C-alpha cells in the first residue's frame, strides 16, 4: 500500500476538529497585528514621539529584548516590532499543539489503531497532521499580510511579515513531528516541542537584549525576526526556515518507520509493584502532580536567576537620569535611593504573573481527571468528591506558595550578592514574594469556581482568566501605556515590599477572603452537580 493512502480523509477529519481551534489562533494573530498598528498610531502619532519611544527602547535591555531587532521611527516597523516578538511565538505554539493533537494525541486516545486498520498508509496520519498545521500557519500569515496591506501598509513588507509568521509555524510543526515520534505520549511530545520553542525564544531574547546578535542565528524564532520585514526584507531567511522544517519532517518520517504504533523510541521502564505511600487523596495528588511542580520550580529558579543576574546592569542604567527611572520612581512612589530595589520588585511581579499560570494548569488537571474516568474510580471508594478535590487543591496551594518562595529566595540571594545587602534585602524579597501568594491563589480560585459551575466551559474560562490577568496586569499594562494596570485583577493588590508606605494587611486579608469564597462556591457547585 502507498504509505500516503488515506491522507485526504484524515485531513478532512483533522480539519473538523481544527475548526473550533484554528480560527481563534488566526483571529488572535491578526487582531494583535492590527492592535499594534492602532496603538502606535494613537500614542506615537508624530515623528518626535516615535523618536522618544525609540530612545526609551534603546536604553532598556528588557524592552529591546521584548520586540527584538533594530527599530526605526516608522509606523510599520514600530508596530511589527511590537507584535512580532509575540506573533512568531504564537504561530509556532499553535503549530506544535496542532501536530501533537493529530498524531500522538490520536494515538493516546487509541483512535489511530482504528484509523490505521482501515485503508490508510503508514505515513498518512503524520502527513495529514503536517498539512493541517502548516496550512493553519500559512493562513494565519496570509490573512495578516492581506489585512495589513488593506489598512495601507507597504505591500512587500507586509508580505514578508506574514511569511515570517508562517515559517515560524512551519519550523515548529517539524519540531513537533519529531517530538511526537520520540515521546511515549502526547503530554511528553508537547513538553518536548514547547521546550524547543522556549529555548529558541530565550536565545533570541538574550541575543536582542544583550546586543550579542549572533545568538539569534541558532534560534528558529530568531530566523523570523531576521527576515526584517519593512526594513531590508531578507527573503533568504525564509528559505532557512523552510529548509529546516523539511529536514525535520524527513527525520520524523524516518523515525516513524522505526517504531511501533503507540510506542516511543525509548523503551518503557518497569515501575514498582507496591505503593506503601499512597494512602489518601493528598498523597495521590502529590504523586500525580509532583513532576509538574518540579519542572516549574526549575523553570522559575532559572528565570529568576537570569533576571536577578541583570541587577548590576539595572543599577548602571538607573544611576543615569532617564525617563524610565523617573517613571518608576513616580509611579511606585519610592525614594530616589530605592529605585533599584523597586526595579527588581517589578521583576518579581513579572514572575508572579507567570506563576499565576501554575494554579490555572492544576485546575485544568482536575477536569482532565474527571473526564478520563480516573476520578470516578477514586470516588467509587469512600473518598468523597470534596476530599478528592481537596487533595488536588492542597497540592496546588502549597505548590504555588513554594514557587513564589523560590522566586523570592533566588532573587533576594542573587540581588544581595551582586548589588545589595543580604541581611536587609533578602528578607524583603522573600516577604514580598510570599505576599503575592494570596493574589495568585485568587486567580486559581476563579478557575475552581468555573470548574464547579461550568465544567464544560472551564478549560476555556481558565485560560481566559489567566490571559486577562496578565493582559490587564501591572506588567503588560504599562507596556500598553498605563502604568498602574487594571484594578480588576487580583495581582493589582500585592503589597509592594519596596514602597515607602508601610505594609498594609488589608488587601491581603481581603484577597484571602475572596479566595475562600470562590473556592467554597466552586466546591459547593462541584458537590451538587453530575460528575463525569
Amino acid at each position, binding site marked *: 500500500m502507498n504509505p500516503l493512502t488515506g491522507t485526504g480523509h484524515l485531513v478532512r477529519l483533522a480539519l473538523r476538529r481544527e475548526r473550533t481551534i484554528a480560527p481563534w489562533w488566526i483571529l488572535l494573530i491578526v487582531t494583535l497585528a492590527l492592535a499594534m498598528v492602532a496603538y502606535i498610531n494613537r500614542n506615537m502619532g508624530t515623528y518626535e514621539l516615535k523618536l522618544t519611544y525609540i530612545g526609551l527602547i534603546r536604553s532598556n535591555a528588557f524592552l529591546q529584548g521584548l520586540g527584538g531587532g533594530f527599530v526605526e521611527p516608522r509606523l510599520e516597523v514600530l508596530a511589527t516590532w511590537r507584535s512580532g516578538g509575540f506573533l512568531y511565538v504564537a504561530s509556532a505554539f499553535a503549530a506544535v499543539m496542532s501536530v501533537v493533537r493529530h498524531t500522538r494525541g490520536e494515538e493516546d486516545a487509541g483512535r489511530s489503531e482504528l484509523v490505521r486498520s482501515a485503508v490508510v498508509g503508514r505515513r498518512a496520519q503524520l502527513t495529514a497532521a503536517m498539512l493541517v498545521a502548516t496550512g493553519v500557519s500559512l493562513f494565519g500569515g496570509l490573512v495578516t499580510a492581506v489585512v495589513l496591506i488593506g489598512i495601507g501598509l507597504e505591500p512587500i513588507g507586509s508580505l514578508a511579515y506574514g511569511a515570517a509568521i508562517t515559517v515560524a509555524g512551519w519550523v515548529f510543526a517539524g519540531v513537533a513531528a519529531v517530538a511526537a515520534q520520540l515521546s511515549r505520549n502526547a503530554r511528553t511530545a508537547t513538553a518536548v516541542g514547547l521546550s524547543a520553542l522556549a529555548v529558541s525564544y530565550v536565545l533570541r531574547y538574550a541575543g536582542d537584549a544583550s546586543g550579542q546578535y549572533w545568538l539569534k542565528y541558532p534560534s528558529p524564532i530568531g530566523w523570523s525576526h531576521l527576515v526584517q520585514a519593512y526594513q531590508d526584507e531578507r527573503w533568504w531567511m525564509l528559505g532557512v526556515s523552510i529548509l529546516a522544517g523539511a529536514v525535520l519532517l524527513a527525520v520524523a518520517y524516518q523515525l516513524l518507520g522505526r517504531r511501533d504504533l503507540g510506542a516511543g523510541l525509548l523503551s518503557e521502564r518497569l515501575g514498582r*509493584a507496591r*505503593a506503601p505511600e499512597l494512602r489518601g487523596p493528598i498523597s495521590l495528588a502529590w504523586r500525580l502532580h509532583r513532576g509538574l511542580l518540579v519542572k516549574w520550580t526549575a523553570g522559575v529558579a532559572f528565570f529568576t536567576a537570569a533576571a536577578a543576574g541583570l541587577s548590576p546592569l539595572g543599577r548602571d542604567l538607573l544611576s543615569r537620569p532617564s525617563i524610565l527611572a523617573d517613571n518608576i520612581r513616580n509611579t511606585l512612589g519610592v525614594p530616589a535611593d530605592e529605585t533599584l530595589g523597586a526595579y527588581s520588585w517589578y521583576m518579581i511581579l513579572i514572575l508572579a504573573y507567570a506563576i499565576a499560570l501554575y494554579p490555572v494548569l492544576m485546575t485544568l488537571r482536575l477536569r482532565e481527571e474527571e473526564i478520563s*474516568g480516573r476520578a470516578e*474510580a477514586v*470516588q467509587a471508594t469512600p473518598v468523597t468528591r470534596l476530599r478528592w478535590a481537596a487533595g488536588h487543591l492542597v497540592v496546588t496551594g502549597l505548590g504555588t506558595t513554594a514557587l513564589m518562595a523560590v522566586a523570592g529566595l533566588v532573587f533576594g540571594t542573587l540581588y544581595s550578592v551582586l548589588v545589595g545587602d543580604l541581611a536587609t534585602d533578602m528578607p524583603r524579597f522573600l516577604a514580598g514574594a510570599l505576599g503575592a501568594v494570596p493574589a495568585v491563589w485568587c486567580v486559581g480560585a476563579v478557575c475552581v469556581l468555573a470548574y464547579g459551575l461550568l465544567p464544560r466551559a472551564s478549560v476555556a474560562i481558565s485560560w481566559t482568566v489567566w490571559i486577562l490577568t496578565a493582559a490587564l496586569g501591572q506588567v503588560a499594562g504599562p507596556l500598553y501605556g498605563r502604568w498602574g494596570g487594571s484594578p480588576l485583577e487580583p495581582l493589582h493588590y500585592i503589597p509592594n515590599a519596596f514602597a515607602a508606605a508601610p505594609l498594609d494587611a488589608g488587601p491581603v486579608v481581603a484577597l484571602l477572603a475572596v479566595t475562600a469564597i470562590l473556592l467554597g462556591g466552586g466546591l459547593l457547585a462541584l458537590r451538587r452537580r453530575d460528575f463525569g
Partner: protein
Amino acid sequence: MSDAISVTGLVKTFGATRALDGLDLVVGTGEVHGFLGPNGAGKSTTIRILLGMLRADAGTARLLGGDPWADATELHRRLAYVPGDVTLWPHLSGGEVIDLLGRLRGGLDERRRAELLERFDLDPRKKSRAYSKGNRQKVALIAALASDAELLILDEPTTGLDPLMEEVFRETVREEQRRGNRTVLLSSHILAEVEELCDRVTIIKDGRTVESGTLAGLRHLSRTSIQADLAAPTDGLADLPGVHDLRAEGDRVWFDVDTAALDAVLRHLTDVGVRGLVSRPPTLEELFLRHYDRTGAGNGRHAGAAR
C-alpha cells in the same frame, strides 16, 4: 432489607438525550444479577447513578438500604466498582493502583491480592500506560475482588479479557457466590457468561426495563421452533393463537410457537397426523436478539428457525 439494589422509575436526561426513561431494577442480596441491553441502552448511566456520580431526574434508587447520592461515603465502604472503560494513571504501575484503590476503600486482603495477581497472570510492575486493554481491566478487577465489599458492581468487566482469563473471572465470581453474602451486579454483553453466572437477569432497552426474572422464567417467555412432516397438508395452523412465522412446503411445515400455546398446537398436529418432528428449545440468544433488535417489534423471525 433484603434487596441490595432497588430502582424504580428512574429517569435521566442529558440535554436532548433521554438516557433513562423509567427504568426498574431489583437485585436481591446474595444474588448475581445480569444487567443486559444493547449499546446505549443506559446500563452505565444506571450504574453511575447507583454510585452517586450522577443525580437522577426522577424515580427512586436505593442501594444497600441507603440513598446513593446522599449516603455515598458510607455506601462506598461496602461496595467495589469496576468501570466499563478502565483508564488508569499512566505513570502509576498496576500494583500501585491496586494498593491505592484498596487502601482508599479501607484496606485490602494481602493474601487475596497476591492470589489474584497470580491467577490473573498480571505483572504489577508495568506502568499503566504500557498495559493492554485487558490488562488494565485486570487491574481494576483485582482491586475490586481483593476487597471484602459486600456488593460488586461490574460494568462489562470482561470485554477485553482473553478466553482463559475470562474463565478465571467466572471461576472467581462462582467462588464469591459460594461464599455467600456477596451481591454482584454484572453488566455484560457476553451471553454465555450471563447464562453461567447469573441467578436473575434484567434486560433494558432505550432506558426502560423490558424483561426481568430468572433465566428459566425468561426461557418460558420465549418460543419453540418446530419443523414437522405431516400426513397431509393443513390450513388451520395459521389461525391458531401463538403460531408465528409459518412456512409450508407440501406436507412439511416450519413455525415458531409460544410456550403457552404449545399444547393446542401439538394437538392440532397430531390430529392431522405426524410423520416426523424436530423441535428446538428456545435459546437465550434468541430471547436477547429479540430484545436487542433495534426495530424491536418482537415478532421478528427467530434466528435459524426457518432454515
